[in-house]
């Protein structure tokens, strides 16, 4: 009986191992991927991203015979919950999700709970173009090493956008922002944590307040969290009464701010996408007087990734899609402000002349800053900062009414 069990177990393991495609043998991956359907779970709240995902799906269908279905999420955590539910039910293969757009705390949680497949990302053919040295965020996701469990596909950096018709000189530092908000109460807000953008605003503010920014790279438990964050809470105590609706209500997501600005309710908003304002202007969502700026001293930048769940059904197809997203063609398209306006993860110096030309040909939108104007990105703090700041904000401001 026991013997049969062991043999059975061995067979299961062998077949499971046989089922996992190896990106080092790319031809085999391509062969296996052909005919597969990849369910890409990605946030569906932005039309620009949805259109880009459809385009990418059409391309890999035409070139590699991989069908891509975009599962539009209202929250990335829904996908994490799904994989978790599958693990709960013992569904260790044939899972519903093949690829997730992910980063930060969601990645950390999935990695920690063994919900991801891999390593695979650093063996993709197009990985050689990735700017690992120049953009450390592509292998260090909120300081958590990616270990090849996720593949980067876009760079993001905090910017602020404002309407020049109502606000000619925007405040370029957090103290200036506070002063401006005092003089003009009700004209600024941020998405309510746990929305990542709201928490990012606080991390950005924290950057300007800590003496030694290196502290933020350590887990929050390892440093004197209370002392480090004390100036942040003092800042927010003063800012909150001067926010939109006196801080008693907040927009629930980043894009909601676009509508608020178009409605004339706010004059200044935070974004994680340098091209968002230009794209919104092109879609009649913002007036063409809106412009973008970054704070003096730099702003936080991070990378967006795609990851494959441990029980994904179409792992080979998912890899082919991830590799396509890293191709110079897809990267150049994503950087086009008329399409997405996301920064590339590639090192342009490593590309051949033809591929470089794709990037050189891009025209920045009227509200998009050039890479020089954006300046160097500050690294994301360790995910524990996000978690603790979010929880503390909830306790101090999110339940205060």
């Amino acid at each position, binding site marked *: 009986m026991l013997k049969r069990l062991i043999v059975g177990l061995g067979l299961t393991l062998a077949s499971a191992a046989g089922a996992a495609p190896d990106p080092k043998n790319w031809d085999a991956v391509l062969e296996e991927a052909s005919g597969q359907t990849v369910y890409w779970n990605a946030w*569906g709240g932005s*039309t620009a991203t949805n259109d880009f995902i459809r385009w990418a799906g059409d391309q890999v269908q035409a070139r590699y015979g991989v069908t891509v279905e975009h599962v*539009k999420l209202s929250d990335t955590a829904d996908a994490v919950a799904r994989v978790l539910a*599958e693990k709960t*039910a013992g569904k260790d293969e044939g899972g519903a999700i093949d690829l997730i757009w992910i980063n930060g705390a969601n990645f950390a*949680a999935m990695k920690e709970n063994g919900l991801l497949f891999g390593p695979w990302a650093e063996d993709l053919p197009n990985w050689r173009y990735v700017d690992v040295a120049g953009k450390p965020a592509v292998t260090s996701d909120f300081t958590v090493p990616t270990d090849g469990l996720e593949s980067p596909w876009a760079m993001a950096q905090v910017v602020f956008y404002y309407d020049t018709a109502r606000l000619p000189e925007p405040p370029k530092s957090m103290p200036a922002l506070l002063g401006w908000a005092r003089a003009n109460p009700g004209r600024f807000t941020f998405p309510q944590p746990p929305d990542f953008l709201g928490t990012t605003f606080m991390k950005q503010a924290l950057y300007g307040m800590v003496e030694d920014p290196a502290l933020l790279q350590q887990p929050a438990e390892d440093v004197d969290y209370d002392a480090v964050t004390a100036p942040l809470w003092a800042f927010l105590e003063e800012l909150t009464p001067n926010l939109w609706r006196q801080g008693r209500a907040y927009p629930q997501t980043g894009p909601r701010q676009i509508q608020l600005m*178009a409605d*004339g309710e706010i004059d200044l908003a935070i974004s994680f996408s340098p091209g968002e304002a230009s794209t919104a202007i092109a879609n*009649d969502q913002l007036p063409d007087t809106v412009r973008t700026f970054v704070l003096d001293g730099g702003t936080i930048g991070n990378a967006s990734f795609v990851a494959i769940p441990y029980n994904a059904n179409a792992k080979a197809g998912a890899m082919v899609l991830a590799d396509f997203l890293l191709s110079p063609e897809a990267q150049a398209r994503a950087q086009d402000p008329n399409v997405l306006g996301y920064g590339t993860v590639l090192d342009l110096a490593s590309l051949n002349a033809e591929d470089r030309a794709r990037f050189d040909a891009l025209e920045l939108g009227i509200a998009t800053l050039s890479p020089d104007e954006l300046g160097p990105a500050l690294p994301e703090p360790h995910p524990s900062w996000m978690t603790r700041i979010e929880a503390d904000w909830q306790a101090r401001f999110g339940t205060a009414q």
Partner: protein
Amino acid sequence: MRLRYAPALTLALMLGPVLAGLAGTLLPAIGIFPALGGWAPSLAAFKALLDWPGLERSVSLSLTTGLAATALSLVLTALIVGSWHGTRAFRWLETALSPLLSVPHAAAAFGIAFLIAPSGWISRALSPWATGWTRPPDLLIVQDPWGLAMTLGLVTKELPFLLLMTLAALPQAQPRRSLTVAQALGYGRLTGWLKVVLPRIYAQIRLPVYAVLAYSMSVVDVALILGPNTPPPLAVQVVRWMSDPDLAQRFTAAAGATLQLALVVGALGLWLAGETVAAGLGRRWIARGRRAHAEALARGIALVLGALSAGAVLAGLAGLALWSVAGFWSFPDALPDTLTLRPWMRHGPELLEPALDTLLIAGAATALALALTLACLQAEQRFGLTPGARSLWLLYLPLLIPQIAFLPGLQTLALMAGADMGRGAVILGHLVFVLPYVFLSLGDPFRSWDRRHATIAAALGAGPARIFWTLRLPMLLAPVLTAAAVGFAVSVGQYLPTLLIGAGRVQTLTTEAVALASGGDRRLIGLYAIAQTAVVVLGFALAIAAPRLVWANRRGMRGA
């Protein structure tokens, strides 16, 4: 199929998922969640829940908004029906309110938000010439801390539901005769109705009222759009915990869902106690025998509030429709700068696939529900089963238990059973919610069918099957189709069951709309709201038109 087993099968299909789902929620609440390393029972989750600083406000918000929305809807329903039933104004109001039943809650809430916000349509129409505003004022109207906007949003959607339920119950109460007697004794129209008819009607619409209470207390989408968020009502917070990247919060979410369930049960108890008090007071009020209470004023108020409620939803929808073709549109312009079909050209083709899936799933779930309901009702008749009050409660159970308390558990169950991810599983999931509505709208017309027709047919030699197929069913075509339209509408509106059971792979207009709504783009929200509403209205239109076409030469068969 053996007809005798139909009721048991129906109950199993409806209650099995609910009870199993509840177990899947209660276990993590007491710390058992093997995938996250929870093997031993513990009360840590409840401790975390109690430690959450917003709990008190969250709970009281759920209670106050739920009770207020239910009470307001009920009072308004009674006033409207009591004052205006049988008049032309009533028919007008009925025509205006019934299609509102089919407007998805989230779409209605978005429309109302755009109407009443400081930068909304009303404010735009009055600015700057009347208000002097060139910028919207910084006023907390939507998302106010007391949940007033949310309560009003709920009332505009629950009022049509209770109104239709009341209208369905009216014939059995035979109000005409009692009212004639009351009016002969000198009672005013409204006072007479409230004293003589309402007590009998209320006994019949109790369960729908409880369903409204349970729904209003645990609603998520409307609360997200119109409700306060610092802190939000409990159901919203439970959803937030469920989607927290920190997976340990799933335990807190389960504890919160358990509390939500207890809260609904407690509120139902409170409501039942309120019924006793109201009955006592009402009896004394009736016994005092006063003939009229400011009749004209009350009737006027009822009409104005009813019209306002219908008007708010319709104007909100109109606003969203306008947004879907708007170029740039800023405050304080009452109308957009330009009109453009670009959003429709760009996103119209994407509507097709989810629309087809929506039709398929809603059609299948409704057909299943109809078949089961008819089989149950027929079995009831043939084997002389008498449905007790208890079976009616069972029927309402899926509507009384907050979705958030059993759907996550149901998802895990569906996965374990391997029945998962396909449209088939989603159809079964929808069946849980479609069945009660179909049963409730078909039960009374079916039972009140004049059985003398059957007796005559049997005397002429027809067997039970033939009587059912060639006599009863054709004669009941109109109510069957109405029940189908109601079931169809319920299925179209399902968000959480579709998302959780379909693994996100099954995409309907509603799941797409909610995902896009998270981006807050009013053009897209308008586009999807119109598509969603159109699908449902189409169902109702078919239900009304079909009997008239089929029975074009049988006037008595065309239904009301």
